[in-house]
């Protein structure tokens, strides 16, 4: 063999091997189970058994309750022949459960699926499951409060450093600014770390002790919360150290502020929206402007209250000059971010996210008018040494501060629901009063998907197919497969029956866990021509 041939042969051998492992699809099929699918038991099972058509290696087998929490304190699973057994350490309380599994066959292809059953009561009693579903979001409040503190502390810490760099303040104000920055960098560091555990616990929808489980922390660390802390934590430490010096080094202040701002850019809807680099830049500008403005308020109030009118006026004028630029950047960047997230005027009022955003914009408008009032009228009067102006101005700045806190709270509330951009990704969406509708299309096949009531429990999925001209489109057959990636649930599959040409409906009671469910729709235009359409449906 010549060198070239040897190389080619080795290359081909490698490719061949890859094919062997990659194409080796197993089709391990669940034949039966105990409890049987959709069965209702009087008492809790002590063991779960899954019977397959062939020998399988389990990756995981778990029992989830209606909140998506693992239940029954499972012991180690064992494999006997074609059966997989999962003994339960504790008995299951009355309720609806899902056995979620993922197994791997001798051929190395993993197959996932799920088995639904109930103990002591009918499957997916909608009322009780909906109540239980509410418990799953028990982590929401702590996450939101922590995030609020994180936002406020982050803005104030970075802002204090920025102000130190650009303003030339009298010594007492420098001290105010330094202590504000130090306190806030401490809070920032603490909340950044807490965010990891709280976020992880929320992702696992765990109970109260989930925060103390390493799983929550490792999940949180693996998410963008981890990368955020990687930047923010060093940033807050640098700021804390730098601001402790009599003459803080400009380099350290910039580095610290940069890291803190950066920590906000690696996470969240706004900064990660495509085009990512541009949006990150826009969000960075927005954050710098906010930090600058917010962090100035407390020292300015101190200036008005403690300094002589002329000195305070000079400080205010120095700040106002730069604040005009900051406010301009703030408004422009805010508009860009809002537009990218909401994408249509109608969405401002039609979606939860849009309404919250409008609320935030309203707060900003009030704050701005107050700021303009302070700048245009009160500062002038202070310089003209009107009696009593200092008090009014201090009060007005105090009000601005409170409004700023409210704006921060509004910003946190925006991080809670998915923005319309995320919902729009599959082609268009309206949030109906009951249920959820969305659309998708693929090479000439359009489908509108309606899920009612889009809450945990029994749901009806309605699919309506249409062609490029919007005419109802008859198909040879339709299949759907549902999965909930966040709970590793998959393998819920159904074949549809046409009610009339192009309309299919499915009744499902497998949607017992709230979350972002993915629906894959296999639409067979004819027996050999399959189009795959995908949509994501939030189940409350």
């Amino acid at each position, binding site marked *: 063999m010549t060198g070239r*041939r040897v190389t080619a*042969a080795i290359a081909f051998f490698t490719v061949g091997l890859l094919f*062997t492992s990659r*194409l*080796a699809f197993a089709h391990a*099929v669940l034949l039966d189970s105990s409890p049987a699918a959709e069965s209702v038991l009087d008492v809790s099972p002590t063991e779960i058994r899954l019977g397959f058509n062939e020998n399988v290696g389990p990756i995981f087998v778990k029992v989830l309750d209606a909140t998506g929490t693992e239940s029954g304190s499972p012991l180690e699973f064992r494999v006997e022949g074609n059966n997989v057994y999962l003994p339960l350490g504790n008995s299951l309380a009355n309720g609806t459960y899902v056995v979620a599994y993922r197994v791997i066959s001798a051929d190395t292809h993993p197959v996932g699926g799920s088995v639904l059953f109930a103990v002591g009561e009918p499957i997916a009693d909608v009322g009780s499951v909906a109540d239980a579903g509410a418990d799953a979001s028990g982590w929401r409040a702590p996450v939101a409060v922590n995030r609020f503190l994180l936002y406020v502390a982050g803005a104030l810490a970075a802002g204090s450093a920025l102000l130190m760099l650009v303003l030339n303040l009298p010594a007492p104000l420098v001290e105010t600014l330094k202590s504000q920055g130090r306190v806030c960098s401490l809070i920032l560091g603490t909340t950044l770390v807490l965010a990891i555990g709280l976020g992880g616990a929320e992702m696992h929808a765990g109970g109260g002790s989930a925060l103390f489980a390493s799983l929550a922390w490792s999940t949180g660390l693996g998410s963008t919360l981890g990368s955020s802390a990687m930047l923010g934590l060093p940033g807050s430490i640098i700021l804390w150290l730098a601001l402790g010096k009599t003459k803080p080094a400009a380099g350290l202040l910039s580095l610290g502020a940069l890291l803190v701002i950066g920590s906000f850019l690696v996470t969240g809807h706004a900064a990660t929206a495509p085009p990512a680099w541009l949006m990150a830049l826009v969000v960075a500008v927005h954050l710098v402007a906010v930090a600058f403005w917010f962090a100035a308020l407390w020292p300015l109030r101190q200036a008005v209250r403690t300094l002589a009118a002329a000195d305070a006026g000079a400080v205010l004028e120095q700040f106002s000059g730069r604040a005009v630029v900051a406010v301009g950047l703030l408004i422009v960047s805010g508009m860009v971010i809002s537009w990218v997230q909401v994408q249509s005027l109608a969405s401002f009022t039609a979606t939860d996210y849009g309404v919250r955003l409008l609320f935030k914009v309203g707060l900003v408008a009030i704050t701005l008018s107050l700021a303009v009032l302070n700048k245009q009228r009160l500062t002038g009067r202070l310089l003209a040494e009107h009696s009593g102006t200092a008090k009014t101005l201090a009060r007005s700045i105090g009000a601005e501060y409170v409004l700023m806190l409210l704006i921060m709270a509004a910003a946190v509330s925006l991080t809670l629901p998915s923005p319309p951009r995320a919902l729009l990704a599959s082609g268009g969406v309206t949030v109906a009063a009951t249920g959820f509708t969305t659309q998708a299309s693929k090479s000439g096949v359009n489908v509108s998907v309606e899920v009612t009531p889009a809450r945990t429990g029994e749901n009806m999925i309605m699919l309506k197919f249409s062609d490029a001209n919007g005419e109802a489109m008859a198909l040879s057959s339709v299949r759907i497969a549902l999965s909930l990636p966040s709970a590793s649930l998959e393998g819920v599959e159904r074949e549809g029956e046409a009610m009339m040409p192009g309309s299919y409906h499915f009744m499902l009671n497998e949607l017992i866990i709230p979350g972002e469910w993915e629906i894959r729709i296999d639409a067979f235009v004819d*027996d050999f021509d399959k189009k795959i359409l995908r949509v994501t449906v939030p189940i409350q």
Partner: protein
Amino acid sequence: MKTLVTACAALPVCLLAASASGHNYVMPTLAPAGFVHDIVMRVPHGCKGSPVNKVRIKIPEGVYRVSVEHREDWDVEVKMRQVDPPIVVEAGREITETVDQISWSNPKYVLPPDRIGEFRFRAMLPNEPGRVLFFKTLNDCEEGTDYYVDVPEEPLDLRDPRFHEDFWDLMSATATPAPYMILVKPERPQYPWEWKTDADKPLPEND
């Protein structure tokens, strides 16, 4: 490219790849472009434990002159499609119609779910080395139908540097791919009388 045929002939890997799979597949997985070739479609199992009583296959674009093996135990049916414009083969003969689908059915002689069934035909493969042919197939069972009809959105080509990645993307995105056949450039023409060779040309390597 010559080496590819040689290497693959020497390595049963290609066949292994196919035989280990759990879905319908065709053999050979590598075939010389432009040859008239015997093709076997293998059905390795039924639909989730249900026996198969009908197997259907769609002949891809560019594959002509299909003839189906006679089966005493299965009814064979072919569905034709028009070839427009007609293609001209040897001696100026025109092909205006070709086999579009083949189906094998016989509810009496169902294929047990745990046995492999073979369905054979012969066809002229397109003279397009590097192209991957996909033979979409369906198994109709006593209960349900298995569809092996997933194909890539863009055609795959062996000469494309992204070939392996694209192939992997396809295979990892679906558990029901259509059976595939990769066309490779033949070492020499199909029929010995068309060979330009001389006796001293070395034999294809076979190590």
